[in-house]
């Protein structure tokens, strides 16, 4: 059961409990269902911290007034069901962690929190992540901003919103600026919506990682290294076998100008993302990508690739021995991507050879190499690495029509034309570490860059996604 810590709060006037009101300040709890705790403008962080560490009843709403509240330690939340933490508005209330000396991250929810809502405030300059929620059930972020402001973006924190190992996650109307990893990140989770949100100046804009049943729609991702990522990773611990990422829809998003040189820390997953990436789907299954505007991303508009490509820096590559003993359950190959009705413009014209630190980055360098080999054309709008599943026979020709080349993946478009490229990486994947810019001959990759001419023959039926139910949403 939950730890219940009871300490009677006897501190003073700054705390407005329940329906009580202060005569000189607006009653922040007015119209808010009890129990409600108000932190009027100017309330000391120590008072805020004490309130969260005192007796907190289920379904308590904490209301911050306008202005800035400065913290020197992570704000740790109690394990209480149904809490709402709200501010006066996304740009009106700021929890400022610029002077943080203890704790890693801005707000840390207790492991296993149920039905928690964050709404209407900004978290500024946290050391580490913005808001962490681990093993949550019912996690709702509504109009929350996380921003890092230091000029040197390598000093920024990692993840802005970080629900992980959670179920029923809704991120709605949120804003992230400057994450050194993924801005809006949902990992090892299930039943997810990310919508109406904006991420910029981050390494990864929106990332769905090792998760299932997710809808990502009506978002804007721009000026990041990569706009929207749908990833699966090996080596995770979820005993349910949820290593893979599956059943994800990415639609009606505006993914543009994601050309910020990669400033992620080496060793992180996102450090392998080429600058100029629109939407990347890696080792995922059942992914539908449609209705997105994908424009002016310098490297590639959309890529559907295996984990092998993400692991280019390793020797041997993860894919050289399958099943890999590190994680025999993990399938590094994606399948069943259905990509249609997206709008492309101005993508793939100038991939970057290096990251922000000037280091050659293999995935990006690969695209750079391709572009160099075909100076008069751009990187295909739909790019596939050509790595199929066991028993997969690579296509023999470069021109393919009608049936998609990978039996595990469906590539289709309805309406406007798009270019399709097959990197044809079915073998000999690993580049020579001493010569990190891939040698096209040695690698045997074969760019089949052509316009997909066919009419869809059989659309995959898609897959049902359960509705995300979050109280108050």
């Amino acid at each position, binding site marked *: 059961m939950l730890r219940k810590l009871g300490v009677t709060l006897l501190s003073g006037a700054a705390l407005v409990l329940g329906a009580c009101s202060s005569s000189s300040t607006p009653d922040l709890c007015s119209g808010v269902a009890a129990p409600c705790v108000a932190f009027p403008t100017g309330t000391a962080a120590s008072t805020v911290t004490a309130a969260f560490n005192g007796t907190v009843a289920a379904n308590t709403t904490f209301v911050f007034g306008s202005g800035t509240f400065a913290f020197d330690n992570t704000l740790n939340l109690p394990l209480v069901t149904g809490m709402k933490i709200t501010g006066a508005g996304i740009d009106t209330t700021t929890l400022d962690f610029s002077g943080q000396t203890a704790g890693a991250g801005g707000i840390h929810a207790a492991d296993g929190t149920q039905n928690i809502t964050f709404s209407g405030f900004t978290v500024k300059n946290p050391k580490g*992540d913005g808001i962490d929620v681990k093993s949550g059930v019912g996690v709702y972020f509504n109009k929350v901003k996380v921003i890092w402001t230091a000029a040197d973006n390598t000093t920024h924190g990692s993840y802005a919103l970080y629900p992980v190992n959670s179920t029923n996650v809704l991120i709605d109307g949120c804003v992230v600026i400057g994450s050194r990893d993924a801005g809006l990140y949902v990992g090892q989770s299930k039943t997810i919506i990310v919508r109406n949100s904006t991420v910029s100046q981050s390494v990864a804009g929106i990332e769905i990682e090792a998760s299932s049943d997710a809808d990502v729609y009506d978002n804007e991702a721009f000026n990041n290294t990569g706009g929207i990522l749908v990833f699966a990773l090996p*080596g995770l611990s979820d005993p349910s076998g949820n290593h893979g990422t599956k059943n994800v829809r990415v639609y009606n998003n505006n993914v543009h100008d994601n050309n910020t040189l990669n400033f992620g820390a*080496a060793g992180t997953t996102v450090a392998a993302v080429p600058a100029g990436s629109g939407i990347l789907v890696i080792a995922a299954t059942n992914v539908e990508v449609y209705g997105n505007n994908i424009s002016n991303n310098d490297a590639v508009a959309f890529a559907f690739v295996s984990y092998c490509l993400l692991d280019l820096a390793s020797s*041997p590559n993860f894919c050289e021995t399958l099943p890999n003993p590190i994680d025999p359950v993990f399938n590094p190959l994606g399948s069943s991507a259905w990509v249609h009705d997206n709008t492309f413009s101005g993508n793939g014209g100038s991939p970057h050879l290096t990251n922000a630190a000037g280091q050659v980055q293999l995935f990006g360098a690969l695209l750079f190499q391709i572009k160099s080999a075909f100076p008069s054309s751009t990187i295909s709008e739909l790019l596939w690495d050509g790595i199929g599943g066991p028993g997969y026979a690579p296509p023999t020709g470069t021109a393919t029509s009608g049936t998609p080349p990978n039996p595990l993946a469906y590539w289709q478009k309805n309406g406007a034309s798009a270019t399709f490229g097959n990197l044809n990486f079915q073998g000999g994947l690993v580049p020579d570490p001493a010569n990190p810019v891939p040698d096209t001959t040695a690698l045997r990759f074969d760019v089949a860059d052509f316009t997909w001419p066919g009419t869809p023959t059989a659309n995959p039926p898609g897959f049902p996604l359960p509705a995300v139910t979050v109280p108050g949403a």
Partner: protein
Amino acid sequence: MDQRLFRSVGLLVGGALLALGCGGSNSTPSCTPVSGKAEPFPTLDAWCQVSMVGGDVVPNPGVTPYNLNTPLFSDYAVKRRTVWMPPGASATYDGENVFTFPEGTVLTKSFGLPDDVRKAQPVVQWVETRVMWLTGGEWHAVSYTWDQAQTKATVAPGGGVYPKTIIGPDGSTLDAQYLVPQANQCSQCHASNSVTTLIGPKARNLNRDLTYPDGTTENQLAHWTRLGLLTGAPDPSAAPRLPVWNDPSTGTLDQRARAYLESNCAHCHSPGGDAKNSALFLSTFVTDAYSYGVCKKPVAAGGGTGNLLYDIVPGQPDASIMVHRLGSTDPSVAMPQIGRSVVDQAGLQLIEDWIASLPGSCP
């Protein structure tokens, strides 16, 4: 320099509530230790578990002190631990997990910061005494912070940061920002699958001799058994024993390094812990080298990687994220995430030596 203000965010507590039990706090009290209720007492005195005597936090009569073979590092804090159970009650032995304690059990752990780590008898400023107690079948936890005069400790659920200048083992001046945890922060380490739990009192960590206040020396498992505090324990020679991390006579380099990692990391880095999403598991029971970090890529480290690729690169401590994070004091990088603001130089050296000794290489 030690007397800088403790930035406490403790709560105001009515003075009338302070008059429970103990009298003067510089002498052995005449009170009787008590179990806790759902709400903590407003002062440490009210528990009657420990007293400040001669500048040290000592157990009251009937309260049993204990030590651990390999403890958590906490900014070089000196620690005093006690256990007390209601008369007639006893804990049940477990060879792997924390003992099962009876309803009403109270444990305390006091933290004092030394002026100079090199001194055998440093001047210690006592900062806090944490109390964990079992009531209604649930563990509760809160900290009491000591006043400047070292005479009274008052409940401080909001925690606080205590700046302290410490002379480190190499003679360098360390500016510790000692963290008294918020009550909610307790669960970051003390929760397993969202249930508050103890960390230290496991057979393998208690299986050692201790010299008790009456001058006698006895193995702690035998002592607890003899006092009736513990049932079901085998002879200490048949019980598991964790090495003392910095005593080579107690274990191999590998065993001592793994013990250090267990005591400092495994409360989060376990399948039910706060860092389960990392899939890096550091209890001594983990035998799969990948699971304890060898050639394991980080999952959720963000900028904490320090631009390094693997948690542990055999033979290359400087290329290992684990060393980078144990050696950092940046809150966004440092491990453990809370409770350490200065580097444990000897502990770091142990892990470096261990990684240097590991064979193999990473992809």
